[in-house]
């Protein structure tokens, strides 16, 4: 990723600090985004905010390195996260219909899961939103950097 053009020199100087910081921040931010995601429902947080925080982590990574290297972190193009997330959200909304309840009724497992607490369709709905948000933000990022 060496850039010999003079106008990028200043950026390169800053990048060392930024890159080092990013190496620590990326996992931290991702963990935090998961925390926010799981914390949702009763407390503030949820899939949308969590997804945004996770996207910020990747945006930071793309600033420090390049968009291409950020995308290399994913095995598949981030666009594919969108339909997967939508499907997950849709199924979690549709599940109660199969049980004879109105669409989007919260259905919960009887037993609590350690650490997370009660698990129900709301969580899977949020995970779907989380994936969609990451997919959308990274797709937009990719499109913008392509048009540069």
């Amino acid at each position, binding site marked *: 990723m060496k850039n010999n053009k003079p106008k990028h020199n200043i950026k390169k100087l800053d990048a060392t600090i930024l890159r080092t910081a990013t190496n620590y921040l990326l996992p931290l931010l991702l963990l935090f985004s998961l925390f926010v995601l799981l914390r949702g429902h009763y407390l503030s947080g949820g899939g949308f905010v969590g997804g945004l925080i996770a996207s910020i982590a990747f945006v930071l990574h793309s600033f420090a390195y390049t968009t291409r290297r950020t995308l290399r972190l994913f095995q598949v193009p981030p666009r594919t996260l969108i339909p997967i997330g939508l499907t997950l959200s*849709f199924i979690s909304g549709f599940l109660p*219909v199969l049980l004879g309840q*109105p*669409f989007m*009724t919260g259905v919960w497992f009887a037993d609590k899961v350690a650490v997370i607490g009660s698990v129900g369709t709301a969580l899977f709905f949020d995970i779907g939103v989380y994936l969609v948000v990451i997919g959308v933000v990274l797709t937009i990022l990719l499109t913008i950097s392509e048009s540069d």
Partner: protein
Amino acid sequence: MISNFILAPILAHMITAIVLLFFWKNVQAQKTVSVIGNIVGFLVSWRLFALVWENGNMTLQMGGWQAPFGITFVSDTLSATMVMLTAIVSLAVGIYSTAATNISRIRYGHFFIYHFLIMGLMGAFLTGDIFNLYVWFEVVIISSFVLLTLGGKKRQMEGAVKYVTMNMLASSIFLTAIGILYGITGSLNIADLPQHVAAVENRGLVTVTALLFFVGFGIKSAVFPMYYWLPSSYHTPPSAIGAVFGGLLTKMGVYSMIRVFTVVFEPDDFMLGVFIVIAILTMISGALGAINKRNIRRILSYFIVCHIGYLIAGIGMYTELAFVGVVFYLIHDVIVKSNFFMMSGLIQKIRVTQDIYRLGGFYKDYPKLSIVFGIILFSLAGIPPLSGFWPKILLFQEAFKAENYVLLGTLIFASFITLFIVARIWSEVFWKDLPKPNAEEIDHFAPFHMRGRLALVLPVVGLAVVSLLIGLNASFVFEVAERVAHELMNPSIYIDSVMHHLK
């Protein structure tokens, strides 16, 4: 009746859109999935209409949260009819766009966005919560914006900027109105609102809120002072998109207006006066705008404005018979306007231009198609016994009964102008010989393979048959319209079905 089935038309299109996302770059698969999705959506909407017709209103409390706290979905006869119309148009335009839309558009998600647009329309027609209505409006606007700008030509951008600016303005006014309404009543459920609105002491504030709703919906349905965004943007996207926009988008505003001003607000004489004045001005400006245009689609854009005036006039008269006229006109208009856009697209395919003075000789070259086009044109003008005739007669009659002769005169003036322009299109495009300088132009339609031709012609013929049936089988449509009008004049039916789960 409480049933999850009410969501089926929305979910059908949602699933289709999700499945389409999995086939992002596979054009053939996208076409197939889209057509299947549209057929399923159509069957499901038909079933919904049949259920509502037999059993009365259907409701659903999302997530089991009871009204007025949760989000309610309600389908009365009006909603079911609108959903049905949306499904018919969506199916026809969906099939049409498999051949009419170019491949790069499909690669950039044409069908995917299209199904989201239809989903948004269905949601707007079925929701029973006024904030949720706003959300569906946004779904529709965002999707329509993408469809309008896909391709990114300069002309499209120009139209899109006007379109988006005006619609954003309308949305913000609508949202402000919802905010005030929530502030004074503490409720957002359409069925719960009327009792709270009636109890508000500050009547002035209620009138202001009602007017804000009218302005918001008015911009979206392109009524008089705020109509100019429509003719300056609707001719820019491909005809397939224009068909959905022209047929359904403005009707969403009219639908919301009918809903809000029959259930939530009881319009007083002042409000009704505003409706009538706006309707008259809308009809005049639409008719005069159409008269000097040469491009078929531009003419049609002004026709949309002009004919919205009929619907607003019907609401302004506020009698049961006037509502029968409005609903009948709505049914007729959605089908014919969409078909008119598809027809103009077909003319463009065959002759490359849509300028009526450069067209000609259509009847000589394509006699069978011309007859179909004739049906569309003359349904629009309201020649008896075609579909536009019956609702117009009803509206004339009501205006006469109300002794509102200015309105009656304008209604007749607007339909006379429509007839005049339709006759001009007929004589210029179909009867006249092809003008010489244009005679050499290539026919883009003839080399089309058989399946493509069928996909282009079949939906146009199908919708023409539907409008023929509306005209010839008017008694059934009257029955539907009468029942809708009865429900509109007695909002307690709607309210009871939500609040007390009555059948």
